[in-house]
């Protein structure tokens, strides 16, 4: 699978699991926890969906990475008839055309491999197309709306502006207030310099204060930025139907959290007035609503939830604050544990230069040069110095493993590696030249032995340390594959 697609799928899966967890918890925490905490929990979901922060042991890395290792080792081995070294730059997509030319599908009787390659080739384009269409649709919709709004905006009265100024006291941030008779609800709009639009109704001073308090909380908490981020995340995960519910839940959570901040310091009368303001604006019927009655239910349900939240609001006890914080930290922990498929570190090294011989193939970093030696041996060079190589050596199953080691070596570490197509042993060796030579330099090397018992041979892939670290070595080892005719007994 393509790396980008793999990452996006892992983010979608990771975020969805976290979101389902929150949806499942909602009935239990809805009335107990602070609405702000609940909103922040959804922001964690959003962050989980877009930022591929992860660590190697994360769940998603487990889900996606071993699968790809297995797949690549089980994939039909390519039978390329060319005898000379075939250096291909590994492109992002398997090139189906080229594979047809090379006869890779000749044995592919049911065309499975062919369709899989074709799918892999286009799935990235399909996803990118969806992202672009979704982003463009959102941006165009927004730009059209804001230009029409700008064209019809009217300045607010001085009295209204004074109310805003008195509420803003102390805040250095200037926010413009305009009236627009075409909008039906007060709103905060704008990216760089947000401004507040109020419908052209006759608000009482108290109503106006309530409206402005609400919009100013949105402004101070940068909710517009969150809304833009939500839009971008939704566009990236356009293929995930759960995103639709996540977006709706986020919008409601945002309003509930905003209301909570507004009413925090209000007395009962003021709270009543705040809720009444919400109801009056919802009921202001300047133009009869058209046929779109279906969405009314949801609108009403949301408003009812907000009103109930205002009625039920009470200062949170220390116990609840403590519990909410614990739960919030747990959510962050789960988000991190879920992780994303970022690949293991060795996969991050650019391994994008394929070397193929009749017996095997492997990939090395692009900036290395390789020299082919007789008998399927290789020598790797970087900036002119030799940094490693590959040697096929004879292997006798009845003799100890030391038979593989060069002379004059001291074993620093030796371990078996899992997840390869054959038995693999990694050894770190210290090598001293023969005493007679008078040379006392000690070279340290990493050897990765691929033992093919039935052929009584092993491949010794070795690298000089510290020029090459273990992770790079393992990355190259992962790419090592035998050609089909050489594995057949």
């Amino acid at each position, binding site marked *: 699978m393509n790396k980008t697609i793999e990452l996006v799928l892992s983010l979608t899966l990771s975020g969805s699991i976290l979101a389902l967890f929150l949806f499942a918890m909602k009935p239990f925490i809805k009335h107990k926890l602070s609405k702000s905490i609940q909103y922040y929990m959804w922001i964690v979901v959003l962050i989980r969906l877009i930022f591929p922060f992860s660590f190697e042991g994360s769940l998603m890395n487990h889900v996606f990475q071993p699968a790809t290792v297995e797949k690549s080792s089980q994939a039909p081995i390519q039978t390329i008839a060319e005898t000379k070294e075939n250096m291909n730059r590994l492109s992002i997509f398997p090139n189906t055309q080229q594979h047809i030319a090379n006869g890779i599908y000749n044995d592919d009787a049911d065309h499975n491999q062919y369709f899989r390659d074709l799918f892999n080739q286009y799935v990235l384009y399909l996803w990118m197309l969806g992202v672009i269409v979704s982003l463009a*649709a*959102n941006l165009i*919709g*927004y730009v*059209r*709306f*804001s230009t*029409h*709004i700008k064209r*019809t905006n009217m300045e607010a009265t001085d009295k209204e502006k004074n109310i805003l100024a008195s509420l803003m006291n102390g805040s250095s941030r200037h926010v413009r207030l305009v009236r627009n008779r*075409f*909008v*039906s*609800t*007060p*709103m*905060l*709009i704008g990216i760089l310099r947000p401004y507040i639009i109020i419908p052209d109704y006759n608000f009482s001073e108290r109503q106006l204060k309530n409206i402005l308090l*609400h*919009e100013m909380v*949105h402004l101070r908490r940068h*909710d*517009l930025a969150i*809304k*833009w981020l939500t*839009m971008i995340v939704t566009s990236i995960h356009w293929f995930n139907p759960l995103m639709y519910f996540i*977006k709706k839940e986020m*919008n409601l959570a*945002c309003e509930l959290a*905003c209301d909570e901040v507004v009413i925090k310091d209000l*007395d*009962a*009368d003021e*709270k*009543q007035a705040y*809720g*009444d303001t*919400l*109801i009056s*604006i*919802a*009921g*202001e*019927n300047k*133009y*009869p*609503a058209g046929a*779109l009655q279906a*969405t*009314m239910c*949801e*609108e*009403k349900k*949301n*408003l009812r939830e907000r*009103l*109930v939240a*205002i*009625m039920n609001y*009470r200062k949170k006890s220390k116990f609840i604050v403590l519990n909410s914080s614990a739960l919030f930290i747990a959510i962050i922990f789960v988000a991190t544990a879920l992780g994303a498929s970022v690949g293991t570190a060795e996969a991050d090294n650019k391994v994008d230069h394929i070397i193929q011989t009749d017996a095997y193939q492997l990939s090395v970093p692009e900036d290395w040069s390789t020299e082919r030696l007789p008998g399927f041996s290789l020598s790797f060079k970087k900036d002119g110095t030799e940094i490693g190589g590959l040697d096929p050596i004879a292997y006798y199953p009845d003799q100890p493993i030391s038979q593989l080691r060069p002379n004059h070596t001291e074993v620093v570490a030796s371990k078996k590696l899992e997840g390869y197509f054959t038995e693999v042993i990694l050894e770190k060796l210290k090598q001293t030249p023969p005493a007679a030579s008078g040379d006392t330099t000690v070279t340290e090397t990493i050897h990765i032995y691929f033992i093919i018992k039935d052929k009584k041979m092993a491949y010794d892939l070795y690298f000089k340390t510290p020029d090459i670290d273990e992770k790079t070595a393992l990355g190259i080892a992962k790419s090592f594959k035998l050609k089909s005719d050489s594995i057949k007994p």
Partner: protein
Amino acid sequence: MSNPVSRISDSEIEILRVLWDANGELPYADIRKSLEQTSKWENSTIKTLLRRLCEKGVVLATKKEVYYYKPLVSEEEYNEYVTQNLIDRLYAGSAKNLVASLLGSKKLNDADIEELRSLFKVVDRDEQNN
């Protein structure tokens, strides 16, 4: 009840424009004369469109020596409606997700508002507890 303006079709607007330009009522012959310069509509087409406008309550026909037609919706009202409708439609789309609004885009009907009003009574909990 929906606004009569919402049901005016594009071709019907052509007829209304003639009536708006005349600043008052026009007999059928005058309407046809104006339309002959801008369109190729048949006599029957114009008659049908006028009849539909009357049925929709947008145009009033009064019989004097001949029928006179008078618009019941002004150009300003129409433009206002179109702008409102456009902005509503734009807002109901993706723009809604990118602004922080106090309430959703749809209005509630009177019954819903009554229900919410009767539900919403803030009780001073501190007083209640004391």
